[in-house]
């Protein structure tokens, strides 16, 4: 009885979280152009999607932004985390505090502050300003993913490598880096996801000519969303779903994960 209740409760929360997603998937097959009416099943939006240059342009901008900002943030953030791990308390406090600011501050305030900065420097609002903004809010996610892994690494192994004649850089890449790699990767993917899903900060740091998927949807809300948008988001969602399921449940990868876990314990 109790376990039935528990399962029902989990199902209820999952329903809450996934109901809008199911709705959007259904809408992507809706022949009627308005989302209020069901006009029969169709696949035509999936076809016209690839001919819609505006949406494809926004998709390209969004993906490019996500990849570049996640890459740069991962580089800067991982380097910072490694430095922070070996820092004295005082210097470390500055970095911890400054990392917490974009994490805890409201997106709207972060967005506005960057907009004011770009205005002060007479920057042209466009791809570059949005990229700078995305890197800024992504770095903390990388740092917070990498730092815990660094704390778990065993310093003596690294020192042993040095004693055996490895240079610090070689020892780092041979000994420390494999240990923190999962943290670096999750920082990268987290950054990528955050960049992809961001609207508020992009809204304040973009110029009139540039659109990401988010800002495009925001301007379309009042006029009515183009059904191709539903098709695109369904495709993106399914792609990620399949990718993650493959990575997690391919037997080989799965047993590797378990091995790692066993080693940790």
């Amino acid at each position, binding site marked *: 009885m109790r376990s039935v209740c*528990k399962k029902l*409760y*989990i199902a209820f*929360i999952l329903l*809450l*979280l996934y*109901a*809008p*997603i199911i*709705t959007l998937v259904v*809408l992507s097959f809706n022949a009627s152009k308005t*989302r*209020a009416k069901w006009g029969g099943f169709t696949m035509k939006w999936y076809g016209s999607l690839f001919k819609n240059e505006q949406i494809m342009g926004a998709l390209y901008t969004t993906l490019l932004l996500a990849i570049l900002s996640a890459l740069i943030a991962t580089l*800067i953030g991982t380097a*910072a985390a*490694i*430095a*922070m791990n*070996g*820092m004295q308390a005082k210097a470390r406090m500055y*970095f911890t505090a*400054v*990392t*917490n600011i*974009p994490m*805890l*501050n*409201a997106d*709207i*305030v972060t967005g*506005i502050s*960057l907009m*004011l*900065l770009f205005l*002060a420097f007479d920057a042209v609002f466009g791809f570059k300003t949005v990229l*700078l*903004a995305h*890197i*800024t809010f992504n*770095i903390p996610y990388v740092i917070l993913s990498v730092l*815990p892994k660094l704390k778990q690494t065993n310093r003596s192994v690294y020192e042993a490598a040095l004693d055996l004649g490895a240079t*610090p850089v070689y020892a780092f890449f041979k000994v420390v880096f494999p240990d923190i790699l999962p943290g670096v990767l999750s920082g990268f993917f*987290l950054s990528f*996801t955050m960049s*992809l899903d961001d*609207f*508020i900060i992009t*809204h*304040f740091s973009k110029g009139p000519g540039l659109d990401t*998927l*988010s800002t495009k*949807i*925001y301007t379309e*809300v009042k006029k009515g*969303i183009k059904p191709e948008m*539903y098709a695109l*988001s369904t495709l*993106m969602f399914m792609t990620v*779903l399949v990718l*993650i399921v493959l990575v997690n449940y391919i037997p080989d990868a799965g047993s590797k994960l378990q091995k790692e876990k066993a080693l940790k314990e």
Partner: protein
Amino acid sequence: MKNKKHLLSFPYLFWSAGFILIPLCMIFFYGFTDKQLHFTFENVASVAEPENVKALLISILLALISTAICVLLAYPLALILSRSAIKNSGFMIFVFILPMWMNFLLRTLAWQTLLEKNGVINMILSFLHLPNLNIINTPYAIILGMVYNFLPFMILPIYNALVKIDPNVINAARDLGANGLQTFLYVIFPLSIPGLISGITMVSVPALTTFVISDMLGGGKILLIGNVIEQEFKQANNWHVGSGLSIVLMLFILLAMGLTAKYDKEGGSYF
């Protein structure tokens, strides 16, 4: 070696100064000056104007309610999941981060379709001969939107805190004669407080400052403080008043940050 390691922090040192600290200072600069760049308190004081007070109060109220609902929904779930057979936290994060891959504006918009007068939920309700739900374009819809969007940020930190609890501690409590309720009240709950506090911060700050959810589900009738600030910047082009209001907003966020710093010593337990 030590010196070389410090070099690694330089990119972030400059980046954080240029793109985090200086921009924050700019908000204070604009917030405390008028258009001729003379010092003034007027922008910050404009929060006392009736419509701004109203917006701020509604924002605080809605943020409090939706944070409370998130706690009530997330805690039992985190408790159930932390005890379940699924010990793979990667799977957990996957299930709750996955929705983010569908654009959050579209997901919020989908609630319009679900909540509308002739929407999906009302169709199901009338099929079951239950009274209809008419909450679209009301504060209730905004609360629903906030709970929906921010719930994962409450679930994950609480779950992480609960998973970290050593099962031996719980067994010890049971061995010493505590019943289930006592074990929860005196052992499990106190140990989960850091996660709970970071969850509360992660939910209340965006809930307090959102302008998108109120835009989409409130039908443009309900202005939150976020909407007021957004309009000052994007429509009225009055950066000074907008910055002044942001400073007031930051005071509330600082309050939340202070709370987090006090309870969450570990930091970064969100993911």
